[in-house]
């Protein structure tokens, strides 16, 4: 598969391309991705996937919105959360157990239209790597996967830009030198425009529905050894229905990085970062009004040192974050409740990549996570029913509860021949921000909480092994990976509780264990007119929590046995590229009733087992055709992209509900499907 990310997106890369400096650890993976097979064989880290961002331009997509998260969903070992969500699930984990980093800053619930599209503008990205739970020591904070996104820097020599319009949104970008060969900037912006038309209609003029996102990156070469980089990202959504509903959510991240070269073989990267995710919702129906808000805020310092010593490539660092999480604040009439807590999250790590001869390579590291729940907010003890039996009010400056988690990481590669490598690894990861959802998919209404005296850190262990082979020219390559993952302190609802039952989330949930295992196969064709891959994932995921499902193991909500993703691109002519994606997902685990009974003249269902049933299988074919015309005289490129989502109009399951006849003699199960055949078109001009 072709597609170097930095080379393509910077258009005219320079030797001092700041993206490569900022992510030196991944640089080799990025720049050699045109020889992706070679990279997949040689990289020491097992369970890492480098995304081919170039393919996003022509890949078929819902409503024509290019979406990196939808591409992530097509990788082996990665599952789509639902058709309505750009969220992804990795190796038995849930989407809220993933961490998404945008130039080091964590981003939560980064979705537009309730998660239908991710908020990441593909034009603003330089590189993306997915770590499927097997991460080097410098990454942490997630009990499942880490998606590490690197923002693209501007061109230092020339001005470039683009304008694009699709069915849902329009976007533009501009980049150019701040000072020639010294620094550059890039700004990308996207906004939906459907609300402009809604305002013209009688029925919808009082409604508001829009989203936008803005990405900014600037860099400046202070000296031969010093460079400064600034990254800013914001996304915002608003949905207001007349005077009844007003829902808003937004993300803001900002990072300021100083890169200092220390001699020829050592470098320091110092990053100040801030991240905010905020929801703000209000409802008013005939005088019954209600509002609630929530947020996650991180502010801190991230320090990396990279040193090359002979065969050793050392990375040492530390990260210190002040976390603020407002689980919820709600107001209804005279009722006002609020729960907000703070924590200090400190990490130090050391990772060494060692080359041992020409065939062996080892990456060994240790990350130490020290998490302290801070005072200044109430904490509780609860009884077995979830009732508060003791209240603590520690002082603002007190470390109320501290967890120390050593997280060893290991990955070993053995390459007996130039076309074959064997890899194995072990990873221990932890997560101190817990999320609860009311749906099976993430929405802007998810509630978050920090680890506390009651909620312990989620801790995951993963073992993985696989082999990678390619043809001598790298035209084809095959990967097979297996994994075994266990996790402790995962949360699920108590019977009869949901996420709005109480302000104190710890009272609504019980903690238990999870386990998942599976195999991932991927065959890729990397060159020629036809490129693409076939990925197959065979997976199992289970959960066991005392107090849920009679304490027995049950299928996790993410459990799905078979996933097949076929992705193909065909370069028909110089101007036309055809793309197709076909997916097949076997039945998703879900909970259905096993008996019914009558209470208060209503038929009520009895649930004997959690997630004991399977939804019908999902499959879908998406196609697109892209026409590209380069005009050398004006240095412009015009691009038309035509797509059809769900070509054969398959009604895939999104929701299954049950209803009964008045006399209880007939239960009807109804399957709701979201999208039938959806055509799309977009036009882009680049200069």
């Amino acid at each position, binding site marked *: 598969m072709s597609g170097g990310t930095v080379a393509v997106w910077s258009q005219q890369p320079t030797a001092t391309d700041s993206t490569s400096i900022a992510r030196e650890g991944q640089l080799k993976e990025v720049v050699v991705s045109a020889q992706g097979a070679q990279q997949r064989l040689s990289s020491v880290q097992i369970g890492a996937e480098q995304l081919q961002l170039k393919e996003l331009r022509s890949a078929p997509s819902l409503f024509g919105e290019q979406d990196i998260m939808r591409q992530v969903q097509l990788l082996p070992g990665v599952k789509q959360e639902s058709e*309505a969500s750009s969220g992804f699930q990795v190796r038995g984990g849930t989407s809220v157990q993933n961490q998404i980093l945008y130039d080091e800053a964590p981003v939560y619930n980064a979705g537009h239209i*309730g998660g239908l599209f991710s908020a990441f503008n593909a034009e603003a990205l330089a590189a993306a790597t997915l770590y499927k739970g097997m991460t080097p020591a410098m990454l942490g904070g997630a009990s499942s996967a880490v998606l590490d996104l690197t923002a693209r820097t501007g061109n230092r020599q020339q001005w470039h830009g683009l304008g694009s319009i699709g069915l849902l949104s329009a976007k533009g970008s501009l980049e150019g030198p701040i000072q020639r060969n010294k620094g550059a900037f890039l700004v990308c912006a996207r906004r939906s425009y459907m609300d402009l038309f809604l305002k013209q209609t009688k029925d919808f003029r009082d409604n508001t529905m829009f989203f936008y996102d803005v990405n900014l990156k600037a860099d400046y070469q202070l000296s031969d050894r010093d460079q400064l980089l600034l990254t800013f990202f914001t996304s915002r959504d608003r949905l207001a*229905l*007349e005077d009844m*509903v007003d829902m808003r959510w937004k993300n803001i991240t900002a990072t300021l990085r100083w890169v200092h070269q220390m001699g020829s073989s050592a470098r320091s990267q110092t990053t100040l970062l801030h991240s905010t995710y905020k929801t703000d919702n209000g409802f008013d*129906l*005939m005088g*019954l009004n*209600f509002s*609630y808000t929530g947020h996650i805020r991180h502010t801190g310092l991230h320090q990396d040192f990279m040193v090359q010593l002979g065969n050793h490539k050392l990375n040492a660092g530390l990260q210190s974050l002040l976390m603020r999480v407002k689980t919820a604040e*709600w107001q*209804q*009439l*005279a009722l006002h409740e609020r729960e907000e807590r703070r924590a200090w999250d400190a990490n130090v790590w050391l990772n060494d990549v060692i080359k041992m001869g020409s065939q062996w390579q080892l990456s060994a590291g240790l990350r130490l996570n020290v998490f302290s729940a801070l005072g200044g907010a109430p904490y509780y003890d609860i009884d077995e029913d979830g009732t508060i039996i003791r209240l603590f009010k520690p002082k603002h400056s007190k470390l109320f509860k501290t967890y120390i988690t050593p997280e060893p990481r290991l990955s070993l590669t053995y390459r007996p021949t130039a076309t074959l490598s064997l890899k194995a690894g072990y990873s221990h990861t932890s997560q101190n921000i817990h999320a609860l959802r*009311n*749906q099976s998919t993430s*929405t*802007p*209404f998810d509630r978050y909480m920090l680890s506390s005296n009651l909620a312990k850190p989620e801790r995951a262990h993963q073992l993985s092994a696989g082999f990678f082979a390619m043809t001598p020219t790298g035209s084809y390559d095959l990967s097979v990976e297996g994994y075994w993952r266990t996790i402790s302190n995962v949360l699920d*609802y*108590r*019977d*009869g*509780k*949901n996420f*709005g*039952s109480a302000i104190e989330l710890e009272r609504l949930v019980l903690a238990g264990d999870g386990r998942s295992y599976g195999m991932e196969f991927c065959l890729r064709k990397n060159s020629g007119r036809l490129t693409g891959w076939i990925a197959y994932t065979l997976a199992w995921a289970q959960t066991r929590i005392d107090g849920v499902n009679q304490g027995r193991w049950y299928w996790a909500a993410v459990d799905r046995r078979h996933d097949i993703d076929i992705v193909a691109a065909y370069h028909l002519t110089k101007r036309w590229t055809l793309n197709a994606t076909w997916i097949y997902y076997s039945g998703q685990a879900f909970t*259905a*009733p*096993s*008996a*019914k*009974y*009558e*209470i*208060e*003249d*209503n038929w*009520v*269902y*009895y*649930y*004997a087992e*959690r997630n*004991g049933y399977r939804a*019908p299988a999902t499959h879908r074919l998406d196609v697109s055709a892209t026409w590209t015309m380069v005009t050398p005289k004006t240095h412009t490129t015009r691009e038309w992209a035509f797509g059809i989502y769900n070509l054969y109009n398959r*009604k895939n399951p999104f*929701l299954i509900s*049950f209803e009964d006849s*008045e006399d*209880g*003699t007939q*239960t*009807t*199960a*109804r399957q*709701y*499907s*979201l*999208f039938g055949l959806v055509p799309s078109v977009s036009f882009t001009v680049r200069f």
Partner: protein
Amino acid sequence: MRYNDIVIKASQAFVLILLLTACEKEVDIDYHEVDPLYVVEGAVTELRTTVHVSRTRSMNATDDTDDAVDNALVVVSTPDGKRDTATYGNRGNYVATTKGVAGQAYRLDVYVDGQQFTSTSVMQQKPVLNNFRMVWKEMFSTRILFGELLIQDFVGEENFYYVHVFRNGFSYRWTVFSDRGSAGKEIKQLFTCCTEDDIDDSDSTISDTDVIWEGDDITIEIRAIDRRSYDYLSSMQTMSSAGTNPIANFTGGCLGYFSAYSPTTYYYEFHKADVEEEDE
């Protein structure tokens, strides 16, 4: 509508919005058979004690099978230790003469096939309905019919309420709520009915069970209930979205609940001309 309901409904709004463009179809589910469980529904009112004992029904049942249990021993105990054994009537219904008094705790024991199921409940005061009316609310140029209740909360205590609306004698809407946020004040409750178009359209395609027709009899029963009853009914109200069972109200492993209450009942005959416009 409680804040809890609003949170849930708000989070589901996205799903509903998406479903506006969605389609639906019936699907076959291969339901797993389980051994029937006992279900007990008991009530102590100021008139008498009634208890219904039955078994769960198979999801695959296609006829109105008899789920009633006629061999149970049903005993209601009063605070002074008096044990009143209920008499079996028919179709799983048992009746005892014990009458409830506000503030008193009652215990229900059901013995059947060597098992014992026990629950308790504290009798609450008779609730006060200040006003009921039907109201039009316009949304997206469509007028939607709401029922609006104004209930006077009791001062000085935490209260829980259950409201059950019947249309022509059949269950139509129900809800439970607490007085959080309105303690000691008037509590407003709304329930949705149907659109004006549904009422006007004699060929309405929506389920007849949702449309209120001219002349329909509306009966509203309001109960003040204790916390244990509230926990059961509240969890039953949200169970369909969570896929979990209600919080157990009985010990011994049966389903159902027991509640002592004194209901207030209000009768209303629906006439479209009586429906009021939403207050500006």
